[in-house]
């Protein structure tokens, strides 16, 4: 992706991307908010109810 850049520019891009991956990974490891967990429970229950009434 960065092969057409000069070495310094490629090195800076690589440095930035590594930092971004680190930050993104840190955010991914956050606990899932309770409102999302609750929403999934409701959606699962609705799906189950829908299948049972068919």
């Amino acid at each position, binding site marked *: *992706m960065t092969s057409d850049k000069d070495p*310094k520019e*490629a*090195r*800076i*891009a*690589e*440095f*930035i*991307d*590594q*930092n*971004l*991956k*680190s*930050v*993104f*990974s*840190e*955010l*991914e*490891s*956050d606990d*899932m*908010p309770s*409102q*999302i967990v609750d*929403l*999934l429970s409701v*959606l699962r229950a609705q*799906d189950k109810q829908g299948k049972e009434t068919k």
Partner: protein
Amino acid sequence: MSDLDPKDELITHLPALRAFALSLTRNRATADDMMQDTVLKAWTNMEKFQPGTNMRAWLFTILRNNFYTSRRKLNREVADVDNVFSESLSVKPDHDGRLQMHDFKRAFDQLPDEHREALILVGANGFSYEDAGKMCGVATGTIKSRVNRARNKLAEMLKLNDDEALELTDSATMAVVGNRGIPS
């Protein structure tokens, strides 16, 4: 292609979806609202997802469309930013690298929405320029330009064009992120 039921596969993408929401909104409450809306839309429109295509890209697209629609409605940038990046510094080794990573997050926080988005899609998630362009509804060249401008702006803010600064920053960052191939 995943063998998972699409709704089960959706669950596996939620951590990345939330990270993407946080990176766009920079506000936990707004990110969670965006995410809730995205999950609801995706779940109830799952028949529109084409098996064999990239579900993460599909989910990210729904979320970013929600985000920009909301922003347009408000007719302003989302102002209630709580610096989720710069305040998310979690447990890290307590040395110079801590400050460098904090600086990086603060600089990233200051980029325009479209530039943060392009960098997160291409730089952090590894989407191709072409795929990222499709997700954002713009030409591939536009995404390339946004990524380049975002990198240049970060390099300027972090003074990475200074050879000595990059050397110092490299060693500090290596200590934080580990030996993950930053070229010497």
